[in-house]
């Protein structure tokens, strides 16, 4: 049993208050954006929308879901996340399994080749020119291929594979399984937890990445929703700034327009972050596990 003094009580109450404040501060922007997205666009322009919508409407979402470009962006992001994650996890796991084998000729060299890339990289411009020279610009694959091998994930996979009982490999070999057979039939089915964790992080990366398509893709129909959202937000800020510079009469008009788009862009933001928010409660424990697995390597 612990012994509580008056001072302990005070500290306890302070901590509960601070944590509640933090949780509220973290939650509020999300809630506020949700509320604005459910509020009538013109009404939002009158100001004062905080905790509850004043004029509830589904109109904004109606517009978002009828916008073919946004819908297309959503599908591109989904497809990219699915394809990118599967390719990355599979290729990296195969690489990692090969790297666990003691008899692999050149294993040390391969390891050094990989680890150097964790500390050094060529920087943005040479990479940009490389992608251009490879002809990957303005293709779907620019979002998928460069992420196919992750050295960091390879190290985590490898550590996990080395923890599997050595007898498994032996018996598979005796039963006539080659390396590839052992990998696909024995090792992969046993690696559920590590695959789940790394897939989640990879999928979140793919869903959230707006920068790669932003610099490499100019075709509108290949842009994922996050990149489109970035363009929408940028144009919103511009309208807002212009509205302030404009003369009074004109100002009101463009002000109305900018705020109407505000409710709309909040709805778009909600749609863009929906998959993460929906999946998150169920996979939170994997995320936590993942960060601890990663930190062991440091």
């Amino acid at each position: 049993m612990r012994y509580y003094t008056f001072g302990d009580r005070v500290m306890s109450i302070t901590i509960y208050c601070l944590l509640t404040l933090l949780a509220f501060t973290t939650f509020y922007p999300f809630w506020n954006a949700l509320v604005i997205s459910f509020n009538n666009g013109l009404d939002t322009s009158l100001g004062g929308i905080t905790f509850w919508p004043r004029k509830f409407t589904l109109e904004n979402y109606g517009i978002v879901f009828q916008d073919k470009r946004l819908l297309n962006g959503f599908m591109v992001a989904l497809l990219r996340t699915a394809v990118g994650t599967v390719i990355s996890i599979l290729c990296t796991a195969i690489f990692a399994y090969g790297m666990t084998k003691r008899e692999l000729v050149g294993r040390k060299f391969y390891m050094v080749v990989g680890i150097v890339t964790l500390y050094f990289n060529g920087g943005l411009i040479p990479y940009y020119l490389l992608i251009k020279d490879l002809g990957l610009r303005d293709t779907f694959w620019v979002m998928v291929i460069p992420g196919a091998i992750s050295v960091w994930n390879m190290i985590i996979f490898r550590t996990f594979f080395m923890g599997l009982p050595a007898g498994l490999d032996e018996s598979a070999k005796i039963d006539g399984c080659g390396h590839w057979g052992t990998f696909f039939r024995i090792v992969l089915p046993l690696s559920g937890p590590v695959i789940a964790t790394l897939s989640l992080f990879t999928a979140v990366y793919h869903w959230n990445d707006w920068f790669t398509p932003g610099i490499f893709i100019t075709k509108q129909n290949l842009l994922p929703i996050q990149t489109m959202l970035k363009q929408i937000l940028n144009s919103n800020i511009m309208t807002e700034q212009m509205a302030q510079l404009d003369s009074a009469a004109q100002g009101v008009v463009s002000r109305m327009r900018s705020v109407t788009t505000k409710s709309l862009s909040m709805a778009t933001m909600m749609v863009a972050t929906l998959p993460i928010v929906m999946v998150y409660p169920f996979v939170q424990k994997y995320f936590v596990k993942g960060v601890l697995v990663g930190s062991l390597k440091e």
Partner: protein
Amino acid sequence: MSKIIANNNIVPKQRTRTGAITYFFRQWELQLMVIPAIFFIFIFSYVPMYGTLMAFQNYNIFKGFWQSPWTGFDHFQLFFHSRDFWPVMRNTLVISILKLAIGFPAPILLALMLNEVRKMMFKRVVQTITYLPHFMSWVIVAGFTISILSTDNGSFNILLHKLNIIDEPVNWLSTSEYFWTILVSANVWKDIGFSSIIYLAAIAGVNQDMYEAAAIDGASRLKQMFLITLPSILPVIIIFMILAIGNLLNAGFEDILLLATNPALRDVSDVLDTYVYRMGIQTSRFSYATAVGLFKAVISVTLLTIANLLARRSGNSLW
């Protein structure tokens, strides 16, 4: 028979060169798992590393890397003598030091506070909420920031107005004085929860008997927090501190690109990484931008080496 031996884990201690080559071809099935990945790493990581040499060229997009003329250190000198040099360096250092000074202790403090919470339900709710922003993209976080701070219907302006602190809504994101504060706050907001996980794990490993002994000796819980918990997780804190020092020139990229859309903010928002982006991708001065990037990389590697020396002295080497 020899095939079976080859497939077993028996590796000859001393291999002759020819032995290694035959061995290599005999295990082609295994090599096939690794070599494509190594080839891939070579293309996507080592080719750009070699490409940084164009910092010493006048890279011409039509002539390509091999035909472009060499110019030595011209681009570096151009950068050092340019008007942009000092503002960019100042912004890089100030922003990253601010992020370090505030963003680094914040998750430690959060972990210490969460550790004192005895109501498990409350703790779990706080954790779930504060971890979430880490998984949202910067586009979304910037969108929230812009929305909360905006002049029409921005909650922050509404709050300050209700408290009678301001009369007119302030356009926070267009005023250079506030930019650093906004940037650092958004960063803390996004990552405070997730970064606290590692410290919570460290705290979980602290020997519980020490608290009991301290309580018997009459230490208050506040004292226990600072005299037991904090010193016990100090090695973890030091390691992460050192890593952070190695990253000192990474002042931010996505967050700045997304929050500083107003060109009027450039005096306070331009850091090395965004400068490289602006010069290289937006105005196609490829060699110049690469030179700036290389300059940054050289300093970063030096910092990382120094940080590692410090780490080794404290007994926690990174490599």
